[in-house]
């Protein structure tokens, strides 16, 4: 049974239909990269999966359980589906370590052993190269450092599925690589990830599957190799041509 399943999802804002009739399955340990032009609904899709947006029709299943449009206990679902945003919102009034421990400390349903979580958090901080920052405050960190902390904060909740919404889009170019390296590490650890990004070379290297979206629907699903060397649809070809330039010099 797939870990995450979306069946015939429809989502509109007022009169604009953002997502029309979308279906997708995600297996455990799969890394899926979602590509597409701006405004095609990629971010909205991620936000529907963890309940930040409600859907008009269709259903979303996690481990066979319906999680879409829940009115109660949505926080239990969000303990299992983690998300990292473009704006890496760390809580400014808490130190890095307190940021990391806030979720586990209050998730009584998951019975975390706080000492264990703390050791784990320190191990993760070390792995992402921020071991010395555990008592620092967010205002003292650079964008790339904050984003890495945001990713660790999500990891401390041991989510089953990880959602990444254009997490490097707001970073200076020099800091993008350090964040992508962390995500590559997670992929190698066989975590289940849904990534929305514009980093093409990274997408090609990290993905098990490429899902190409346009105007609210899935146009093409292929392996990275197929997608770049031999796209099946016209729209995919058009999208990829945006990133290629003919040199002035011959």
């Amino acid at each position, binding site marked *: 049974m797939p870990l995450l399943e979306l069946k015939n999802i429809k989502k509109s804002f007022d009169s604009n239909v953002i997502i029309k009739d979308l279906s997708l399955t995600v297996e455990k340990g799969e890394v899926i990269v979602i590509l597409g032009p701006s405004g095609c609904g990629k971010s909205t899709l991620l936000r529907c999966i*963890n309940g*930040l947006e409600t859907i008009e029709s269709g259903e979303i299943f996690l481990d066979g359980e319906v999680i879409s449009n829940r009115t109660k206990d*949505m*926080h*239990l679902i*969000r*303990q299992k589906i*983690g*998300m990292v*945003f473009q*704006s890496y*919102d*760390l*809580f*400014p*009034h808490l130190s890095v370590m307190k940021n990391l421990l*806030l*979720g586990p400390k*209050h*998730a009584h349903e*998951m019975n975390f052993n706080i000492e264990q979580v703390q050791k784990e958090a320190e191990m993760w901080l070390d792995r992402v190269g921020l071991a010395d920052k555990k008592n620092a*405050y967010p*205002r*003292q960190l650079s964008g790339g450092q904050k984003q890495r902390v*945001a990713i660790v*904060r*999500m990891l401390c*909740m041991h989510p089953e599925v990880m959602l990444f919404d254009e997490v490097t889009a707001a970073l200076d170019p020099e800091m993008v690589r350090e964040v992508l390296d962390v995500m590559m590490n997670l992929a190698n650890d066989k975590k289940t990830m849904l990534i929305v990004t514009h980093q093409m070379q990274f997408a090609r290297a990290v993905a098990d599957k490429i899902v190409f979206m346009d105007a609210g629907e899935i146009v093409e699903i292929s392996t990275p190799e197929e997608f770049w060397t031999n796209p099946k649809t016209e729209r995919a070809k058009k999208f990829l041509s945006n990133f290629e330039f003919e040199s002035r010099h011959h």
Partner: protein
Amino acid sequence: MDFSFIKQVTPMYKEAAFLTLHLALIGILLSLLLGLACALVKYYRIPVLKRIVGAYIELSRNTPLLIQLFFLYFAFPRMGIKLSSVQCAIIGLTFLGGSYMEETFRSALESVSKVQIESAQCIGLTPRQVTQYVILPQAFSVSIPGFCANVMFMIKETSVFSAVALADLMYVAKDLIGLYYKTEESLLLLCIAYFILLLPISLIAGFAERRLRYAQFGR
């Protein structure tokens, strides 16, 4: 400048200042509670209550304290509700201050960005936990400069209490001018009294605002 006169009447000013401060503090405390309750009602859009709060805020912000006091002190007795000067002063000040506090707290609550709230939701916190551990702490520090400004405003507003026959600073000054014609001395002491009451708060407010800016932007 008659310094012996100044020495003679300083105790009167001191007593009046204490009275002013005493009433102001009660008013500030009550309006803080009232304002906080109203702000939460408006922030969470609680039906029915939010309309009542809205009407209260419009009434309170668009009428001068003096008129509110006159109404309480002169009109209420005719309706059978007799209030003492002190009661009028505290009720009036709380009524007025509550709406100013509401504005401060509500804008502080709204300053916590939607993404912050979503980030908190995404690590699995319940709505109550999100409010308690993420929204309120941040709103608290944001509200401090506005709160200090309200405190200053309310202490200044107490200068109308002489209208309801309270022996506050204005009353003492006017009395002394009328009785002894020592205008310069009386007015000087009056200014000094208010300076002593208000300057410290003005400085604290400025200090708090700079600390807040540092905490948010690290500069």
